[in-house]
């Protein structure tokens, strides 16, 4: 089985935010929640870099480890998903997550946390693949249709890569070889305890 990962080639990201928009539209993500965002570091200064970031679907995921009700599970593809039926909206996964992926709709009283929402790697949730319930809670299940996450599929500069970790690492390595530079696979060391040597 594949081990699905995201890789953002920061030397190619032009901060167009198309991945952010595509994600919101594909899954009809509620107002105020962003499963993916583009962060620009050193904005307007020399050495500026933009990185598109969502849930990295970590190895030994911290969110799953700290969840008080154990609502997370990892699929055979290495995708970290959760059950909104089990989630109690406590906020613990958000404290533990290195990438700020978990988001909470402010639906509770005093604007307190509702059930957590995060990137599903376009792989839905525990409900039947492609079902109406699954779409309403988690959005589209593209993986079940044999498609990769939409954010990466439609990235105009092919900066954002999604797919089996070894394959996208190989693609990235070849790019670095060819162009002679690369600022590395952002977040990989934190998420997967390994990085791509280039």
């Amino acid at each position, binding site marked *: 089985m594949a081990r699905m990962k995201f890789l953002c080639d*920061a*030397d190619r990201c032009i*901060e167009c*935010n198309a991945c*952010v928009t595509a994600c919101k539209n594909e899954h009809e993500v509620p107002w*105020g929640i*962003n499963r993916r*965002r*583009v*962060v*620009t*570091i*050193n*904005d307007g200064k*020399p*050495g*500026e*870099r*933009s*990185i598109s*970031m969502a849930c990295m679907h970590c190895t030994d995921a*911290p969110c799953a*480890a*700290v*969840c*008080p*009700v*154990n*609502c997370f599970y990892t699929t055979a593809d290495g995708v970290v998903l959760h059950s909104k*039926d*089990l*989630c*109690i*909206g*406590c*906020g*613990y996964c*958000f*404290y*533990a*997550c*290195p*990438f*700020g992926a978990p988001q*909470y709709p402010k639906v509770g*009283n*005093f*604007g*307190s*946390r509702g059930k957590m929402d995060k990137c599903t790697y376009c792989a839905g949730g525990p409900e039947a693949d492609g079902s109406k319930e699954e779409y309403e809670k988690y959005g589209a299940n593209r993986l079940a249709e044999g498609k990769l996450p939409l954010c990466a599929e439609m990235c105009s500069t092919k900066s954002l890569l999604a797919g089996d970790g070894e394959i996208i690492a190989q693609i990235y390595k070849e790019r670095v070889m060819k*162009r*002679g*530079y*690369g*600022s*590395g696979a*952002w*977040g990989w*060391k*934190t998420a997967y305890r390994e990085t791509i040597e280039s």
Partner: protein
Amino acid sequence: MASFERIIRLAFSACALLLLVMAAPASAQQVNPTASAVKEQQLLQELNRIQGRVSIPDQRSGVLEQPQGREWREFRNVTLRWVGGIAILGMIAIIVIFYLTVGMVRLQAGRSGRTIVRFNMFERFVHWMTASCFIVLAISGLNITFGRPLLLPLIGFEAFSEWSQWAKYAHNYLSFPFTIGVVLIFLMWIGGNIPNKVDVDWARRGGGLIGHDHPPAYRFNAGQKMIYWIVVIGGGLVAITGYALMFPFYMTGIEAMQMAQIVHSIVAVLFVAAMIGHIYIGTIGMEGAFEAMGSGEVDVNWAREHHSLWLDEEKARTGPNDGRPQPATAAAE
């Protein structure tokens, strides 16, 4: 004028030549536009977090990476469970051993049949409001830390989630009456809870818990003062940190929320351990103690043995024969 122009032209060509010379080696090999680019590992080493600008309205999502969540995870899953487990089970173990070896602290002189008012209606209402909230808060809080390894395997995912969801609501809502209770306790009993010289003697004599010693005490002895300050300071800390967690980002950022959770949970488990001790002494640990918070009136002999200086004060205030006859049921004991 013409010479000035010539100088300018000369300077320009010199500059152009210099640029050409400098650019030559660079164009000979590939240009590396990332030479001055930010490096992930360098940023993490410097600040232990990476932050930038986002163009979406949620500015908090500008934090790209904050790996210190890993330390928080270690605390939440390992450290806290050890500290909480040792504090609470340790306290229960001490109480069981103490009860089996020393047993209930009896009234040495027996009951006098006369009582004296110790806590009025308002004081008892505040105490029980705070206490009942505390018990629900403690159970629902311990569920977050210990429920997953202990309760979830017994009742299954759905039932445990359902229960935890209600426990979370209870935890959030009952925090308000609990906080009001702590504030009222602070205000109404502060007068009797300032440590003084009598407490030193009381503490040196072990509070009279072992043996038949009865060191003098005013309305609150050193042990009760300790409970008072645990409630006031501990309660204050869990309230402040709890609200920081309940209203995310109103007061604090993510690191401060991790810190708030650490303070909240550590203070809470120690608080629970202290209250288990408090409940023991107030019920089966000491004869005649529960009445103080039950009916509000204690036996005069109880007051003499445990709070002699307070009894003297009360007598001086109200006259020596103010003790009321106890109800027949209590006197028959």
